[in-house]
């Protein structure tokens, strides 16, 4: 299975701290994406990083990708209570496939 595994499964931090979530996957990919899900609602796309990129920023988000280790990390800086949600990495399979597979998710709680 290509499915990603996020680490940690759950993370609890104080508002203002940084949160780091990691994702590992098993097969070669074209792109890796991160999504956010608020309590049972739909997933919202946060950021996409391509296999030939190593780092990407978007606002308070920083994503890194290490294809040699088949891993990615998502850093949320200066966290806010509103960042409380589950975060999922998602990968596709290199070779033009349509299937995007989601990882197991990290549940982030930001305490005000």
């Amino acid at each position, binding site marked *: 299975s290509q499915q990603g595994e996020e680490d940690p499964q759950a993370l609890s931090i104080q508002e203002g701290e940084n949160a780091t979530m990691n994702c590992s996957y098993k097969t070669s990919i074209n792109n890796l994406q991160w999504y956010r899900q608020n309590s049972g609602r739909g997933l919202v*796309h946060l950021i996409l990083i391509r296999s030939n990129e190593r780092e990407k920023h978007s606002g308070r988000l920083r994503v890194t990708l290490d294809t040699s280790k088949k891993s990615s990390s998502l850093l949320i800086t200066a966290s806010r209570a509103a960042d409380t949600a589950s975060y999922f990495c998602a990968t596709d399979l290199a070779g033009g496939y349509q299937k995007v597979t989601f990882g197991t998710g990290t549940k982030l709680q930001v305490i005000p």
Partner: protein
Amino acid sequence: EPEVTQTPSHQVTQMGQEVILRCVPISNHLYFYWYRQILGQKVEFLVSFYNNEISEKSEIFDDQFSVERPDGSNFTLKIRSTKLEDSAMYFCASSLTGGGEKLFFGSGTQLSVL
């Protein structure tokens, strides 16, 4: 911003009954997907659909499942004979270009099979 719309938000059905979950993808998108999520668990791929045919499906998507794009705007998931284990949140998603690019998700249909 354009949205993916799913109806109904909740569906309760008896085991063995057929259900149809409906989705209106973003209008200029070409790739459509169904995912499901059992309470608090991982988001599982069911099927992808492009150019009026299934492009990929998972082992979950057996003969009890089917998808259809009956007109230019709707995308439906049918479960022919529901089982208790089909109870889950079902998400529709669409993408402009497919191929592992950004997915836009609907807010889901919570299916409860009794």
